[in-house]
């Protein structure tokens, strides 16, 4: 079920993009005068994929970049260019991704360097299906010879292997080179660090058991689940400052570090529930820094230091961070 939910989220999530203040490109929303040309442009725009929004064509998208692509398509068609030439131009830049018709109409790739002997090459696409066919044949032979599959089951196994091959033929792209890549940033370790940092402030006495469970999820990077548990906890104990702060952190992480109004509200509530505690202010400052609001973070932390009692154990740590923040602000020339 979880996987299904993730799949649904991936399909419906819209990228959070900032908008620019520029007016749309002249032909982003204006049709060409000549209906025949506009129809050609429309046909192409409906089969070019918006680069910012994944499941929309540029004809359907309101993203500014899609508008600029429409402008380019319309002006080039008005200038007499062939729609397929424009598609090829786009695919030379963005690959198959940009065209919904990519699989059908693959543009000619630049000739690879084949040395001086220019032998007539076998089309790459056909050669690359050889290994999978050999694999299927080997699997069949293995079942018959080594596992001594009874003859009546041969047809069944053959059908199953054909099923697998069909799936591969539809979805596989054996012509594509392998592209090993470095592991993505580990979301989980970030969650663990946040939990440790919070515990360092409130510890060593353990938090409520709800918070403990939620921390388990947060450590693994499952911030939505952590937030759900914390909300349940807060219904029972609305004034638990550590739960409120954990909720604020989980909300922020779930939004990929964006400081949402909900997270800000949770930080405020944490501050209200436990006045004088450094946790909410500290983490709100971190969130502000991550959203690029360095100056705001600075004034927040400076205010905390001013109000802090002289013997507060966290004074030195915060002062040190404030110094580092000042260095960062100076460096970025604000």
């Amino acid at each position, binding site marked *: 079920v979880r996987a299904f939910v993730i799949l649904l989220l991936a399909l419906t999530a819209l990228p959070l993009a*900032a908008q*620019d203040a*520029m007016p749309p490109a002249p032909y982003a929303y204006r049709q060409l005068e000549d209906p025949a040309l506009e129809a050609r442009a429309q046909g192409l725009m409906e089969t070019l994929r918006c680069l*910012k929004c994944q499941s929309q064509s540029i004809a359907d998208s309101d993203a500014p970049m899609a508008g600029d692509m429409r402008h*380019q398509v319309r002006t080039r068609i008005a200038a007499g260019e062939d729609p397929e030439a424009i598609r090829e131009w786009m695919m*030379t*830049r*963005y690959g198959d991704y940009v065209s919904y018709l990519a699989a059908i109409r693959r543009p000619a790739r630049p000739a690879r360097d084949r040395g001086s002997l220019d032998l007539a090459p076998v089309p790459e696409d056909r050669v690359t299906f050889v290994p999978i066919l050999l694999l299927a044949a080997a*699997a069949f032979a293995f079942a018959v010879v080594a596992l001594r599959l009874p003859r009546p089951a041969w047809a069944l196994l053959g059908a199953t292997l054909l*099923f697998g091959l069909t799936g591969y033929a539809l979805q596989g792209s054996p012509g594509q080179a392998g592209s090993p890549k470095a592991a993505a940033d580990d979301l989980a370790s970030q969650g663990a660090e946040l939990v440790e940092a919070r515990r360092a402030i409130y510890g060593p006495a353990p938090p409520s058991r709800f918070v403990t469970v939620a921390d388990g999820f947060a450590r693994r990077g499952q911030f939505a689940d952590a937030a759900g548990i914390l909300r349940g906890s807060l219904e029972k104990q609305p004034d638990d400052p550590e739960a409120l702060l954990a909720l604020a952190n989980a909300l922020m992480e779930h939004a990929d570090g964006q400081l949402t109004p909900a997270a800000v509200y949770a930080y405020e509530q944490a501050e209200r529930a436990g006045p004088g505690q450094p946790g909410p202010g500290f983490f709100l400052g971190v969130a502000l820094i991550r959203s690029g609001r360095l100056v705001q973070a600075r004034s927040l932390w400076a205010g905390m230091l001013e109000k802090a009692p002289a013997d507060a154990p966290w004074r030195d740590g915060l002062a040190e961070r404030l110094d580092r923040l000042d260095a960062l602000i100076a460096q970025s020339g604000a």
Partner: protein
Amino acid sequence: MKGWRFFVPLGVFALFLGIAGYQLTQPKDDFVRSEMIGRPMPEFAMRPASPDRPGLSLADLKDGTPKLLNIWASWCIPCAAEAPHLATLRARGAPIVGVAIRDRPEDVAAFLERYGNPFDRIGADDLSELQLAIGSSGVPETFVIDGDGTIRYQHIGDIRESDVPVLMEKLREAGT
């Protein structure tokens, strides 16, 4: 009991379903990478995006020195986040030219005032024309352009601290 052999095809079938299910739940790579790596930059000439830096044209990139070409915009939040790292790259001697996407001069000026200006030149790309021509699919992105104006490398997204040495190395490679 030899009946188990009849379950071999079923096992193979379950394996196929398992592979399909596994692949469906894998996070996918959302980056649309430029296919223009190794190809020359197109002909272009852009007006200055800010009053205190000149604009950008193909000739500026073909002056023999490899450069970083930073595609950014004042309205883009990650662009502010990468500003300190661009400053670091600049301090380590990387020449950086900027392309401001869909941006007003006053917004560009305010952004540079606030986050610093590591750019030698900043061109204004009001219709994302250069961005489309080099296969860039968003802001911020950073390209390494060699001294002949050939695109050598593309970095997608904001530059993090860990990307600084990578970009310095790619810039060095482009110069050899």
